């Protein structure tokens, strides 16, 4: 009997030895927090470091939009800027209506946009927006040229302006009203996000290739925020947005250090971080679909260490 048991054990041993050749199963880690699959999503904005004209729709405040993708574009923004001589607090509301059948191209054939329309009177919180030229710049054969796409509606006020008529209220709403020349007025409320206030802590240095940026902001229960990272061109004293990062609205982000470590200091003097918490959605009114962007922005300038 003992011999039988011994043989059985030896057979089991051999079987186990032969069959045990795989390695343990790996585990796939997935993130499902807030519906964002990644902690951060990085988009390269500027591909030409000489192009300060933001063809893709960024301006120096960090307000990001590419209006030519829509037939209309309505924005309401609360803007703060830190790190300059004077901090800026501003409220800006705009409305642009395109004639999509009337495109404008550069001499080189690149689409710049569409001719705009002024369908009537636009009011934000019952304040009438001004019609101002919608000027865009572009580079053509090394020369900077300006062109006008038409008129757009703008209502903007900075802090300290005694004639400030429009105040962007965070975590509230902005009333939009379009009174067309012909037809019925279109009116709706644009919800506004909670105010975003960020801070930037830099450590290390670019020379040592260990430049780190820890970004903090007041977190909120939203689907996520965007952070635009740009630089200030020394020579032109113009800002150039480099990356757009989408991340969770959880209050903190360590910027992947390679994104900052390679920035040439001889060309750029300052880093610009713009925190954006926004609502972007479509709204139908009077058989027209309106594309709406409501956002809180905080832009911070810091010297490259």
């Amino acid at each position: 009997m003992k011999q039988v048991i011994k043989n059985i054990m030896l057979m089991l041993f051999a079987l186990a030895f032969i069959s045990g050749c795989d390695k343990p199963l790996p585990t796939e880690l997935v993130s499902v927090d807030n519906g964002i699959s990644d902690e951060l999503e990085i988009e390269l904005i500027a591909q030409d470091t000489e192009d300060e004209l933001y063809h893709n729709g960024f301006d120096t405040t960090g307000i990001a939009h590419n209006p030519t993708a829509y037939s209309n574009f309505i924005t309401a923004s609360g803007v703060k800027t830190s790190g300059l001589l004077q901090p800026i607090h501003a409220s800006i509301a705009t409305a642009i209506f395109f004639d999509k059948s009337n495109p404008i191209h550069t001499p080189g054939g690149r689409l710049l946009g569409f001719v705009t329309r002024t369908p009537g009177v636009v009011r934000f919180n019952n304040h009438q927006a001004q019609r101002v030229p919608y000027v865009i710049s572009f580079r053509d054969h090394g020369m900077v040229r300006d062109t006008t796409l038409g008129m757009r509606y703008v209502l903007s006020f900075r802090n300290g302006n005694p004639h400030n008529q429009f105040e962007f209220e965070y975590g509230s709403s902005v009333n939009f009203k379009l009174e067309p020349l012909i037809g019925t007025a279109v009116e709706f409320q644009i919800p506004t996000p909670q105010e975003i206030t960020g801070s930037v802590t830099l450590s290390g240095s670019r020379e040592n290739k260990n430049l780190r940026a820890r970004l903090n902001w007041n977190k909120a229960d939203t689907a996520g925020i965007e952070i635009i990272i740009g630089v200030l061109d020394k020579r032109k004293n113009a800002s150039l947005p480099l990356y757009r990062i989408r991340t969770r609205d959880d209050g903190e982000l360590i910027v992947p250090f390679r994104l900052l470590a390679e920035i040439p200091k001889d060309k750029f003097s300052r880093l610009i971080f713009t925190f954006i918490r926004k609502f972007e959605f479509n709204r139908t009114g009077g058989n027209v679909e309106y594309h709406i962007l409501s956002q809180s922005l905080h832009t911070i300038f810091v010297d490259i260490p």
Partner: protein
Amino acid sequence: MLQAGNILAQSSFSFSGSNDISGKSFNTIGSFETTPSNYSVTKDWAFSLITGGEFSDYFNSSLYTIALSKRLSPHNFTLRYTPGYQKEFFFNSGESIIINDSTSNSLQASFNYRELFGLGYSIDLTEELSAGFTMRYFTQEFNKETLTPVFSDSVYLLRENVNENISFWKTDLGIDYFLFKDLLISLASVNLLNFGSSVSESEFEKYKLKTEKNVLLGLNYFPASHLNLSAYYESSGSFQTGLSTGFSFLGGNLNFSATVFHDKYQEPFIAGIIPSISFSINNFGIKILGVKYFSNRNTSGSYSFFDREGINNIINNRYSLDKAVMNFTFALNTQREKYLEFIDVEIIEEIFPTLSESYFNKPFAVGKVVNIGNKQVTVKPFSKIEGLNESEITSPYVSANPGDTVRIAFYTLIPENYKGTKTEISYADFFIYSINDEPDDRIQKAVLVNSSNAWDGKVSNLKFFIKKGFEFSIGYSKNILSMHKSVLDTTKNLLLPFVKTNILFDHFVKELVYTADPRASAEYVQFPEETVKLKGGDCDDLSVALSAILESAGIQTALVDYKADGEPRHVNLLVNTGLAPEYAGFLTNNDTKYSLRKNEFQKDEVWIAIETTSLTDFNTAWEIGSQKFNNEALINMGLSNGKVEIIDVY
């Protein structure tokens, strides 16, 4: 051997830890996870293989451990290769890139944690205390896609693969101590001293295997021979507790155990259970165990948890899957496994060869034997007295539990034909066997072997001399009685024993003289043949010889031992005439010349006393014998006060 599922849930998790009832385990040679010294049970070489697999959508098998252990008492060395001690994670790195068409591409990352091999040393400092250390080698491989911007006339993001491999040694100390025979305390460090390379990419720092320093305290309690209760606690707050029991089966041991564990890094509070069944026989052991977690396990996990917490253990973490594990252990003993050891053997009787039958039920030596093994064994005692025994003589078997000391009685057999003429010092070899063909231990003691004529002075033992002279006595008595055939033929049957006694005695004493023992210092008894041949002897010799002659003629005799104070003791004979009391008048009218004794049917029979040293004639011997018996045994109440004893020869 009793085994407990001694698999720890925390940093100390293992697939092989098992305790037997001595607190040390045959199956733990591949395990460094409990106290580092706990594999010191190995007797010589031992080999262990642990294989098994994880349950997901299918069963994925792995070879977890190959271990080799060597004992050079009191030192123990172990080498362990652990190909299956690894855990790989792959995931999106948490970063993605938006390319021109606005589609998002996630960057991939994979981390692989491995324990490759380990080595251990322990030493048995005392019977109760052992201590040791282990060194285990770990590697960690971090692989991550990342974006690197390149600034020139234009800016673009380069998708790069960043790879970093680091390794470290983990060193721990531990002790095992039997506070009591049934209580084992284990104390060990966890991550006492770790040293190795560090990461250069700081972003990988938080993903390194967590190596929190802890202390592990273990208690093993053995309240009964087949029951083990164990509890282990880590200073981190994790703990496990288990129970095991077992029984003998097919010549081996079949054991069952169940252990539940709490791991501070896992949910729920009781994170899982480890049932096990094991069987061990001789040098082979097999153990099958399962690891069942009480939370849902699959091949995907939460990145955010991993990013925040990391892992503390490669084979037991919140991402580990349910497992089935087989543990094979083989002892490759070039040295025989020893379970029993002599403490001492005491010779309690010198050997009197003629008293051979008395050794059937009386040990001549007593030994103390301890079970130093880890399982219950049967002690098989043997002895051999040089010059007396031709082969080893077995004595009754005794069962001994681990750690028990048992008393072993050694008996001996003396050959019928033994003829030792000299008393001499010989040597007795004592052996104890357990499960092996060779004895576990042996010891040699001097023993006095007397000559065949030596007597221990106990009159009761003279019967052995009588029996030994039987062969001679039969011929002697027949020869004499045949010479008196005419007398016997005309004698009434009921008087035949008396007449035969008369004839045999008269013939026996015809040529004899009384002589004292030839050796004053020692009791010496002649066999009947020697007495006849030497034509004389003392009371012992004459009583033995006459008893043998009468017994060989079918006449029942008894020895009468007169234990007189201050005088040499004296022996003579009582002879059964076979007459009922009412016929005593056929012999004599003097009722002091006979006495009555009950036979086996409780009927009285007439016995007469014969003084064997009275070498004149039967009647004189009867007269003297009767007077002595009457005076000392009856009048002086010698039979009552023990000064006279009657010993039946048969």
